[in-house]
């Protein structure tokens, strides 16, 4: 994985960056606080001494004999009307200038750096006099090297601490990232192993509640669906091959047997005719499969129109009535008033034909097939096609719509179906925005088609 691309690297770097940012802000605040505190301590001391000196100067009224009593340990300088008036020996020891102007001070303060250390100077104006008033400027110096050193020391400690914190942040970040991404690694490893041959395997769910866990569950659900459709496809392909094999076997054996014997013209015609019948069966199979695969591919583009459902079903019934008559089956049609729906006529007709054809096929001679169309309360059209044949067992009611599914293998095959009729019916009904299912019927089967009156086929328009 390239540097900077891996989530782990980015996580660690971002984590370190955030930690360092927080540390930087905290360190700066500490530094400013400590520095202000220490400096204000120096100022308080300076002010205190300056107060004493200024009070003495004020009370003396400018008589410098009194100043002498202040002692020589405190370094201060007194200017009178801009002229040097007095200074202590401590002042000269510090080698401070003997002449200072008010203008030399900014905010009463002035830094003075000497070889021995750092001094802060503070000045204050005092107006006093015995006969006439004079302007005095008192300047006091105080050494604050120690304070400066502690402040600088703090800054150095804080910045060296930054290295330590950085290391800690990187290490902690790595630990956290590894911990958080551990399931990802497992998932990646597992996902790599899953292929078409091992679709039944699932990704490990480490913490079902967290984001990665949720993602894993979603992916597993997707795998469930994939496996399902893969299985259906596999079964479909194997079923289809099987269905092809049957007519192919017939064609082959009929041809081989016919060639083996010396037959008369009539027998040869029969053999060829029989082979052609099987060919027709294959053709029908291919046509049906094409309808379904085209439906699967979503390639079907249909134009929907307002059609009368009753007349559509009536057409189908009249078309197939002859088959019912042939078996002496009573085929009845009850319906409410005209129901006009937005549908695709040909596909829906195909669906009803397939279902009705099945009903007639499986109903015994002299039986009953009933078609009922009614309008439900929620404005849907309901088409019931019921018979008194053997019926559809409850446990296979969903399966009957699967491709190539047969309730009874032997029975259906002799009837000539490939088990695709109901699949096509389902596809066609759903294309028209409806549903199809087998429901309870005390005497046989009942296939129910519901067509929605409001939202049918909108996506195709």
């Amino acid at each position, binding site marked *: 994985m390239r540097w900077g691309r891996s989530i782990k690297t980015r996580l660690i770097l971002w984590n370190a960056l955030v930690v360092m940012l927080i540390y930087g802000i905290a360190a700066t605040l500490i530094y400013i606080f400590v520095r202000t505190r220490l400096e204000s301590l120096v100022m308080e001391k300076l002010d205190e001494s300056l107060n004493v000196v200024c009070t003495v100067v004020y009370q003396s009224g400018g008589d410098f004999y009194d100043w002498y009593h202040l002692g020589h340990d405190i370094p201060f300088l007194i200017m009178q009307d801009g002229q040097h008036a007095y200074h202590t020996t401590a002042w000269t020891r510090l080698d401070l200038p003997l002449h200072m102007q008010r203008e030399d001070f900014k905010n009463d303060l002035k830094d003075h750096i000497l070889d021995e250390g750092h001094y802060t100077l503070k000045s204050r104006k005092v107006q006093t006099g015995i006969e006439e008033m004079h302007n005095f400027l008192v300047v006091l110096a105080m050494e604050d090297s120690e304070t400066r050193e502690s402040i600088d020391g703090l800054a150095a400690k804080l910045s060296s601490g930054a290295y330590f914190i950085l290391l800690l942040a990187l290490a902690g970040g790595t630990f956290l990232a590894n911990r958080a991404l551990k399931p990802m690694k497992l998932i990646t490893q597992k996902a790599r192993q899953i292929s078409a041959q091992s679709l039944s395997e699932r990704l490990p769910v480490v913490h079902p509640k967290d984001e990665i866990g949720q993602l894993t569950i979603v992916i597993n659900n997707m795998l469930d669906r994939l496996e399902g459709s893969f299985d259906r496809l596999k079964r479909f392909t194997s079923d289809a091959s099987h269905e092809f094999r049957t007519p192919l076997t017939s064609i082959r054996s009929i041809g081989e047997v016919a060639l083996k014997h010396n037959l008369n013209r009539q027998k040869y*015609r*029969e053999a*060829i*005719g*029989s*082979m*052609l*019948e099987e*060919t*027709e069966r294959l*053709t*029908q199979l291919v*046509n*049906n499969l*094409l*309808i379904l695969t*085209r439906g699967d591919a979503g*390639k079907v583009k249909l134009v929907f129109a307002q059609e009368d459902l009753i007349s559509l079903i009536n057409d189908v019934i009249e*078309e*197939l009535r*002859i*088959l019912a*008559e*042939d078996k002496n089956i009573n085929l009845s049609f009850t319906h409410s008033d005209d129901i006009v729906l937005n549908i695709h006529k*040909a596909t829906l007709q*195909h669906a009803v*034909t*397939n279902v009705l*054809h099945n009903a007639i096929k499986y109903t015994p001679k002299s039986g009953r097939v009933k078609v009922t169309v009614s309008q439900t309360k929620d404005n849907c059209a309901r088409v019931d096609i019921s018979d008194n044949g053997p019926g559809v067992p409850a446990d296979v009611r969903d399966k009957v719509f699967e491709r190539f599914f047969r309730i009874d293998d032997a029975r259906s095959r002799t009837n000539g*179906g490939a088990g695709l*009729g109901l699949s*096509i019916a389902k596809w066609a009904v759903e294309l028209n925005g409806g549903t199809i299912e087998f429901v309870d019927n005390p005497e046989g089967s009942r296939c129910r088609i519901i067509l929605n009156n409001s939202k049918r086929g909108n996506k195709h328009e």
Partner: protein
Amino acid sequence: MHILVIEDESKVAKALRDGLASEGYNVTVAQTGEDGFFLAMSQTFDLILLDLMLPGRSGIEILNGIRRKNRDVPVLILTAKDAIEDRVLGLDSGADDYLVKPFAFPELLARIRALTRRGRIDLALKLKVANLEMDCVTRKVTRDKRDILLTGKEFELLEYLMRHQGHVVSREMLVHDVWHVTDRATPLDNVIDVHVNRLRAKMDADFDNKLLHTIRGVGFILKEGDEP
């Protein structure tokens, strides 16, 4: 009548040549698109049967070439592709008709007959096969002067068979032309068989000279004489 068959599959080409020759057509076969295109441009044919999937030059290209030369020879396309877009493409390119493989040979013959007599309207109002007569205006059918009462569907079925008398009619043609269902997968074969049986019972049962014959695996034929 001279027909050009452009078909690369040699078995199909041979079957077409033999089948059409036995119907009295003069057949030339081209097995590649180039040959077919050359022949179509250099000679005159009454009809061209064109396979769409050819090596070298596609059927649509050949069709475009022929139509660019403004030759109004009828072209019947044969193809395994039956999606609606494919049909539209073929017809838009100037084909006159379209037949999807595998096709029933009788249907191919019927289409060829229809294409080569284009312009001449075949709407005889009185049809006759042996002693079976049909009046399309009064919708009266008689055999040997005896009235035969037919249902509407039976009448349409018989009319279609009579109009194709002497030629085999496949179930597919009936589904398409008599039942007017375009969907190739609709299960109507049983329905057709029952109708044919009933028609036969009405028009043939009382006579020794049978007219309506079933050709197993192929379809039905209405003609005089036992030999189909």
